[in-house]
């Protein structure tokens, strides 16, 4: 607020000031814990990059390409973790006993981060696939499922953007999230079956790299998983906080604007 609360502005302004002060306090406390999480995530990612690019040796078969594998599986893991969290919180919202808009916000925040990491997974996988399989894209079950997930959850985010009362929006979104999540196993199994009836993966088998990852490589991969999970938590917490502030702004923004205007009128 620009103008200091004027004496004659009435008690509603006083309540409002108190509420805003409370809000600002909450924001600061959130920032403190979040900042620590952010620093931890950043340190982890920097360490992963350093280990992945400079410390670990090139792979016997894949050469320097193996370095992409320190970030690609962690990205995919975060994407699936995010969708899992989103589905669980949607379920929690639909369950009458645990119905709370916090779960709705959590579902939305998590899905949004999930979409970002799905895109990263697809891009990094594609970059890896080009020299390894000789194509930017193969119709592999995992790839195809991930691509469909990307589109499915873009639809989910689109439906979250549609205006409405918070409750109606939350219910719509929760059902959409469940429809999308139920689809994942069906898509995966049908695509896998579709492929296995057709032909085996062509140029090089998508090797289960875990079998011959060892020493510094294993540690780097592990660190990748941990730090990307931290990044996920950090992004999601911020997204959750923003969603909450957005709602507050929607519900109280008009009041604050009116109070400011009134204070100005009194002061002027």
């Amino acid at each position, binding site marked *: 607020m620009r103008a200091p609360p004027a004496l004659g502005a009435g008690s509603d302004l006083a309540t409002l000031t108190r509420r805003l002060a409370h809000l600002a306090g909450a924001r600061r406390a959130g920032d403190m814990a979040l900042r620590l999480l952010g620093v931890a995530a950043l340190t982890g990612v920097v360490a992963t990059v350093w280990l992945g690019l400079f410390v670990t040796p090139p792979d016997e078969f894949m050469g320097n390409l193996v370095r992409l594998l320190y970030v690609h599986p962690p990205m995919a893991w975060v994407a699936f973790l995010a969708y899992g969290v989103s589905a669980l919180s949607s379920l929690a919202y639909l369950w009458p006993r645990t119905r709370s808009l916090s779960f709705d916000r959590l579902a939305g925040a998590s899905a949004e981060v999930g979409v970002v990491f799905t895109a990263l997974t697809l891009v990094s996988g594609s970059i890896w696939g080009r020299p390894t399989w000789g194509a930017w894209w193969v119709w592999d079950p995992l790839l195809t499922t991930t691509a469909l997930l990307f589109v499915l959850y873009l639809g989910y985010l689109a439906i979250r953007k*549609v205006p409405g009362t918070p409750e109606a929006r939350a219910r719509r979104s929760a*059902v959409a999230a469940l429809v999308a999540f139920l689809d994942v196993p069906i898509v995966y199994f049908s695509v896998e079956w579709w492929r296995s009836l057709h032909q085996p993966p062509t140029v090089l088998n998508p090797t289960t790299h875990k079998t011959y990852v060892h020493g510094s490589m294993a540690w780097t991969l592990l660190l990748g998983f941990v730090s990307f999970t931290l990044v996920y938590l950090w992004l999601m917490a911020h997204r959750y906080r923003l969603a909450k502030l957005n709602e507050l702004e929607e519900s109280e923004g008009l009041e604050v604007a009116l109070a400011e205007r009134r204070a100005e009128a009194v002061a002027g």
Partner: protein
Amino acid sequence: MWHDATLVAAKDLRIEVRSRVAVNQVAPFAIAVLLLFGFALGPDRRTLEPASAGLFWVAVLLSTILAIQRSYSVEASDGARDGLRLSGLDPAGIFLGKAAAVVAELLALEVLLTAGIALLYGAHLSGWGVLVLTCVSATVGLAAVGTLYGVVASGLKTRETLLPLLFLPVVAPVLLAATKAFDAALAGTPSRGLGWLEVLVVFAVLYVALGIVAFGPLLEDG
């Protein structure tokens, strides 16, 4: 629930019979899609015939979007949706009824499209049992997802663009499984399509169940 479902389905079908929107608009649309595939792939039957199962189901998917939009646009005017909510009908029954009406319309359309792929693409129709079962189970799944997403999108300003975005990725496995089952039947080896039929049945059961549970709260949103 079943009684309410028959009432709603009969109402929707009666509206269709009287307004003829499905006959005059959705069916010609589906035929236009079949012709366009012909233009896209060229007139060679050696290209068209192996693709006919997939093209058939893509045409069905696109028509389903129209059928669903139609199914909810009849509820949009004259406060029909409020009437439905006030009617005291079981929401699960409303869901089943609306889905059943869409299934009936789509099955009629599929008969037309089957004739279409035989005539235009030169597909050899065989394995009738698998063909019919595939049509029924796939269509139930499509109608269930569509009706569920239809009520989510209905009443929203962006429904025309939102529904296809929500609907198409979810029904991707239906397209896949129905196409493979059709391929098997048309190739004269219908028994190879039975596994795909199971996928379709699982999909249909899952989404009909979800629709029965979730439709009520969504209808209330208005």
